[in-house]
């Protein structure tokens, strides 16, 4: 333990030297601007984060945040559809956007002298998006194709979607980010217009810039482009706190598949909701004891040891906006069944409740966390992601820098305590993917246009 401690201190000081300084500003219109310096290469990443995502939605308009993200590329009063992407491309940039449960974000990666172009275009579409029916009709079809690609035709994704909607009956955590297909089919341009007016404003956004930049110059530029934008009255979403679960929930998803699968989840707090702020960190350590690499318990005991599973995992996200789930999943090996995998996962949980985790496991996890904090600095995109993610859910970006210390402070007793408190049957939901026959290749579809197969 002493050598670990010495190593930890040594690294912490190296980390401070290696990580760039962060500068935080707020414009008069409420836009938060956070700049992290990284002078290793003459590049910059610029991200605009909006505090809106699927967890802000309600039944009937699910998926609207994500559809709006698509429409943000479809033109403003000053720039017609597609021009945003053309200009970024001609400036050597790469760009895209992503929507999640708690946020919608837009980003560009550019050579550093191109940053003003990103600001000019992003500030333009923050308030002056021109939503047009003809563009919407095409784009809603693209989004439905995306849903087919990501969910309908992926048995495990389909299982997860139904699992989340079963685990939560009121909390908006249950809403799939891509939206239910029927809601997409019935979406109207006016839904998007309302959503845009309600959430897209400087006082509901965070601008994150990481790269080879001078923070004061970035601030000046941000004032020039984003400063004139008018703020909006933002009414936060209602809390929609999930009623206490009163017993185990189970569901089966029958879908064409080759391999069965099970996923289970226990209701768990997150940093924003936890009564005691060490608990989410203890749950993080717990997830790592089970699934923090190839030496963690699930791979060691279930995949390589008993060989009941061909893969098994655990997951937990402490940075969500609302309370979520501590997840476990697994795929049975050869002659074993989904029930065998579930039983083995329950045994693992029992063990965590009965006995404290070993010093060696804690040491391993803490070493990994310290090293990962260094590795993450190799990507300016990832550095910006962490800042934006935290700020978008209403947490302080400094929590990312505290993470290593908070994990280091977790004890074996605390891990055992959260295992006993949260991994309980009353709070459990279990889903099983029950494969229907695939029948692929058995009945080849006849070629409809007379094509021949040759080599």
């Amino acid at each position: 333990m002493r050598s670990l401690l010495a190593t930890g201190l040594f690294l912490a000081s190296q980390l401070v030297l290696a990580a760039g300084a962060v500068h935080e500003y707020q414009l008069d219109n409420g836009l938060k601007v956070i700049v992290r310096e990284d002078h290793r290469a003459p590049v910059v990443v610029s991200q605009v984060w909006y505090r809106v995502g699927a967890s802000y939605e309600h039944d009937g308009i699910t998926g609207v945040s994500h559809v709006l993200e698509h429409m943000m590329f479809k033109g403003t009063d000053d720039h017609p559809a597609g021009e945003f992407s053309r200009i970024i491309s001609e400036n050597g940039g790469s760009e895209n956007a992503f929507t999640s449960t708690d946020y919608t974000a837009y980003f560009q990666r550019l050579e550093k002298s191109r940053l003003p172009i990103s600001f000019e275009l992003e500030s333009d579409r923050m308030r002056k998006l021109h939503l047009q029916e003809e563009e919407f009709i095409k784009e809603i079809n693209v989004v439905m194709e995306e849903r087919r690609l990501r969910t309908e035709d992926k048995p495990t994704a389909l299982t997860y979607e139904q699992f989340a909607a079963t685990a939560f009956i009121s909390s908006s955590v249950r809403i799939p980010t891509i939206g239910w297909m029927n809601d997409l089919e019935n979406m109207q341009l006016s839904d998007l217009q309302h959503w845009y007016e309600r959430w897209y404003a400087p006082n509901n956004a965070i601008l994150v810039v990481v790269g080879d930049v001078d923070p004061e110059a970035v601030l000046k530029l941000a004032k020039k482009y984003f400063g004139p934008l008018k703020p909006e009255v933002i009414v936060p979403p209602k809390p929609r706190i999930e009623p206490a679960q009163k017993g185990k929930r189970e569901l089966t998803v029958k879908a064409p598949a080759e391999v069965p699968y099970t996923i289970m989840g226990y209701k768990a707090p997150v940093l924003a909701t936890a009564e005691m702020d060490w608990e989410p960190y203890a749950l993080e350590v717990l997830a790592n004891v089970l699934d923090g690499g190839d030496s963690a318990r699930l791979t060691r005991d279930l995949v390589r040891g008993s060989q009941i599973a061909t893969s098994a995992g655990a997951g937990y996200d402490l940075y969500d906006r609302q309370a979520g789930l501590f997840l476990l999943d697994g795929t049975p090996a050869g002659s074993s069944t989904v029930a065998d995998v579930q039983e083995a996962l329950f045994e693992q949980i029992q063990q965590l409740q009965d006995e404290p985790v070993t010093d060696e496991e804690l040491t391993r996890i803490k070493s990994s966390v310290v090293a990962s904090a260094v590795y993450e600095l190799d990507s300016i995109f990832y550095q910006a992601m962490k800042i934006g993610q935290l700020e978008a859910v209403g947490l302080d970006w400094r929590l990312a820098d505290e993470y290593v210390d908070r994990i280091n402070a977790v004890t074996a007793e605390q891990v055992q305590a959260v295992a006993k408190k949260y991994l309980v049957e009353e709070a459990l939901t279990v889903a099983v993917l029950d494969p229907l026959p695939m029948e692929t290749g058995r009945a080849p579809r006849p070629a409809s246009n007379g094509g021949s197969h040759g080599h």
Partner: protein
Amino acid sequence: MTALLLWLTAIPVVSAMPAIQHWVTDNGARVYFVPAPELPMVDINVTFAAGGVRDDGHAGLAHMTSTLLDMGAAGLSADEIARRIESLGAELSTGSARDMAWIKLRSLSDGAHLPPALKLLADVINRPDFNKQDFERERKRTQVAIQRSEQSPSTVAEYTFFQSTYGDHPYGPRPSGTVDSIGALKLKQLKAFYKQYYVARNAVFSIVGDLDRAAAERLAEQVIGQLPAGKRAPAVVPVPALTKAGEQRIYHPSTQTHVRMGAPGMHRGDPDYFPLYVGNHVLGGGGLVSRLFEEVREKRGLSYSVNSYFSPMEQDGPYLLSLQTRNDQVDEALAVMRKTLQDYVDKGPTKKELTASKKNITGGFPLRIASNSSILDYLNVIGFYDLPLNYLETFNDKVMAVTREQIVNAFQRRVAPDIMETIIVGGES
């Protein structure tokens, strides 16, 4: 707009260029090194010409050999290797594809972490145990992974495309193997494969990180200095061109139909590399801005992703166009894709399109070498495919030198829209 146009000047890149250092170890391994003192970490990639192309009729042999490397070495069990690596906060992984197989290590660079991580890397490369029980377990896991991959219409389309396009050429079979071919493998085949191909003359060793040249030389020596010199793997045989078009429709119980259309394209170091690469950027390689994206997605809303790319390999890797759409729209989407390709081959890019693509490629150059991990990938490609050491320095000039005429000429010689394999995997309308 005028304010924006002012920015469309050339981007200076010379200052960002990493100097690549290269040497050969006494036993014949080619080493490529770029110092990166900014972060206290080291990235290493050791690649062997030991990919699926060497399977010699036993599909999955290279893949299984690669998988077994860190599942027991120098008497340490798989559990023990994983425990030691992760206790150091290091990341060790193995992988393989058609041309190559690799072992990667990422570690902190200080004296307490790097030396023991290197010892484990050396064990995995030099002294894998190939234990029977690890082989049987990983064989079953691979078989389940193959079964699971059959759930994906995209994966089925991809491997069927390779089978149809490359036929009996070693690029044809799936590098992961099939459930049957994996089932038929013998442990002694893996051992023989390892002995033949995991040798110094068949290795490319790339290093990026916080160390100097002398330390990098010692590092390479420590990790593969003891490996037998052996022989470099023979060149992959050339790929025969397609002689006629082919089309396969495969039923899959999915709501979307996935299309893969293409033919053998080009190889690394190909004389037509730059005209084909730049030319394809206009057609389908430019991310959110390309002709295919415009015609298939932006104008018609037919597909979420649509693109085309050359995948240059030791011999001609595929030129592949892809999309996926609702089952009842596949004929329409395919027709648009074919027409867009045919128009492009007939007429090439407009001057404006070509200028825009060149600006994207050259202007984005600093982004490609902005992290240690991306530089490591370039070193590996340069080393493995014997590209010149100044490949990165001259990249932008070569892109800028490409003319419209060169693109039209190269596409008309190398891309034949009427002699392509088309694989269509999906459900009923």
